[in-house]
């Protein structure tokens, strides 16, 4: 279940509207100082600044850094440590893993034997059914978390069920959702996945209220925006959880937040999630593994240790645009979770940057040439 490895297509113009000026963020190591004086042949032929920028991007770029999974330093390289590590492996695969698999299976049995009757028998009594389903979803998520020995420390006041509020969090893996869901039954907006995950999405998650989107469809954004708005206005619905980055990032950086969550006219409650890498790298590199492999990897590691901070709710300030609001909240979350901010749209994983950026560079060069032509 990997995301498209095929051709990249140019991003739709709709994705442009989201971004503030990237030029403000890009490293201007080869800062093209405004040249003066009459235009000479050497000025036209000297393309060194632009070449330097290109080479700089080839050697290192902030976007790729966001999606690099850092393999931990191997520590099993000596005669004493190696057997220790081996016994660790044996313990993890032959004892921990089966135990966890059993716990998970028990959890599923309990869950299904309660959920199915509740779902069908209480069809008439909606309020009670919803309440029970909420509790059951929280329950199965707790079982999931237990199956990787998740040690989660929650900080801050627990989310409350109030209308006109949405929750936003940074995104590292699909397990973010499970970790948050075990504490509070959120409604979430997700990419529809194929396979068994998709099945879970359409059956169980429907009960807590979920919204689906499809990254590859351009028109999808408006439809989803409307669904988000409708959901957040409803008093009865579970609080909405949104991951504004739109893609999984490696928990050391944060990419640009999409403004959709910030223009619903609701209070935005930021949540910061930070995983402790000593135990396992929880980043789901969807280009490299399927979700199933990712889960198996988690279930055969020692533990998943993370911190969750529920941060102070934010409102749109007078005179602030949705993009500025999104950036401000991204700042709050990044500071709390120790993430470095980069100015890239997460969707650039799946599509090319818009030609607008190149055009801006071309325009400034053209203007400088024309201006200097006039000078004597």
């Amino acid at each position, binding site marked *: 279940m990997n995301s498209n490895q095929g*051709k*990249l297509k140019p991003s739709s113009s709709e994705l442009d509207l989201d971004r503030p000026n990237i030029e403000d963020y*890009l490293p201007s*190591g*080869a800062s093209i100082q405004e040249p003066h004086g009459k*235009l*000479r*042949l*050497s*000025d*036209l*032929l*000297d*393309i*060194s*600044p*632009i*070449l*330097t*920028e*290109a*080479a*700089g*991007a*080839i*050697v*290192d*770029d*902030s*976007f*790729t850094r966001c999606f*690099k*999974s*850092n*393999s931990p330093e191997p520590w099993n390289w000596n005669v004493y440590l190696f057997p220790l590590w081996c016994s660790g492996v044996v313990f993890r695969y032959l004892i921990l893993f089966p135990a966890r698999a059993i716990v998970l299976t028990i959890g599923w049995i309990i869950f299904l034997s309660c959920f199915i009757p509740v779902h069908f028998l209480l069809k008439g009594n909606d309020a009670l059914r919803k309440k029970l389903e909420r509790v059951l979803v929280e329950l199965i998520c707790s079982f999931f978390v237990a199956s990787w020995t998740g040690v989660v420390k929650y900080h801050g006041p627990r989310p409350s069920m109030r209308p006109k509020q949405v929750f936003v969090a940074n995104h590292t893996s699909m397990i973010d959702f499970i970790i948050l869901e075990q504490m509070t039954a959120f409604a979430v907006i997700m990419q529809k996945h194929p396979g068994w995950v998709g099945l879970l999405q359409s059956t169980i998650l429907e009960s807590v209220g979920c919204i689906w989107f499809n990254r590859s469809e351009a028109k999808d954004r408006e439809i989803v925006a409307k669904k988000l708005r409708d959901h957040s206005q409803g008093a009865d619905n579970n609080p909405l959880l949104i991951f504004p980055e739109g893609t999984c990032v490696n928990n050391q950086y944060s990419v640009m937040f999409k403004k959709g969550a910030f223009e619903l006219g609701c209070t935005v409650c930021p949540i910061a999630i930070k995983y402790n890498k000593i135990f396992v790298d929880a980043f789901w*590199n969807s*280009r*490299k*593994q399927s979700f199933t492999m990712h889960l198996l990897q988690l279930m055969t590691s020692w533990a998943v240790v993370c911190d969750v901070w529920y941060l102070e709710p934010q409102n749109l300030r007078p005179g602030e645009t949705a993009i500025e609001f999104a950036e401000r909240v991204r700042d709050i979350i990044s500071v709390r979770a120790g993430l470095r901010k980069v100015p*890239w749209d997460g969707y*650039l994983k799946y599509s*090319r*940057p818009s030609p607008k*950026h*190149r*055009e801006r*560079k*071309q*325009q400034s*060069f*053209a*203007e400088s*040439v*024309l201006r200097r*032509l006039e000078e004597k």
Partner: protein
Amino acid sequence: MGNSSSMLTQYDIEEVQQHCNNAFSQQEIVSLYERFCQLDRSGGGFVSAEEFLSVPEFAVNPLSQRLLRMVDGLNFKEFVAFLSAFSPRATLQQKIEFIFKVYDSDGNGKVTFNDMLDVLRDLTGQFISEKQRTQVLTQVLEEAGYTKESLLVLSDFVKILGSSGLKMEVEVPVD
């Protein structure tokens, strides 16, 4: 699941270092190798044009297509040689040679008026008309003592660019 592709041996590193005329230190070559493997997602031993273009910072560069023609499908040794012009240890001559190669797309050692016009077009896009571009280029060429029909060779480039204080360096991040 980090990129633990085949490790570089000391012998490999020295070979690459020799090939690029010691433009990079051994540490830098190891870093470049990590980067190369990171870009080479398909693991084919070379980085394809698609893989280069998936770096947004590279894709928005006006000269990305020209550079792609030079760097597409290179193996690691050639990749390092390509980047050697950007090392702080590279001489001015080497840097000017690189720029010359960017212009000389057919590789015959001569840069024509059209080659220069092509690069200028890449750099200015739709913001200057073709007629104006031709005019500007002709004008500065004549002022420098050439004509529209002149074929510039490397020594011409050295003469033109040699005194302009060329700064063309990138830093290879070494952990």
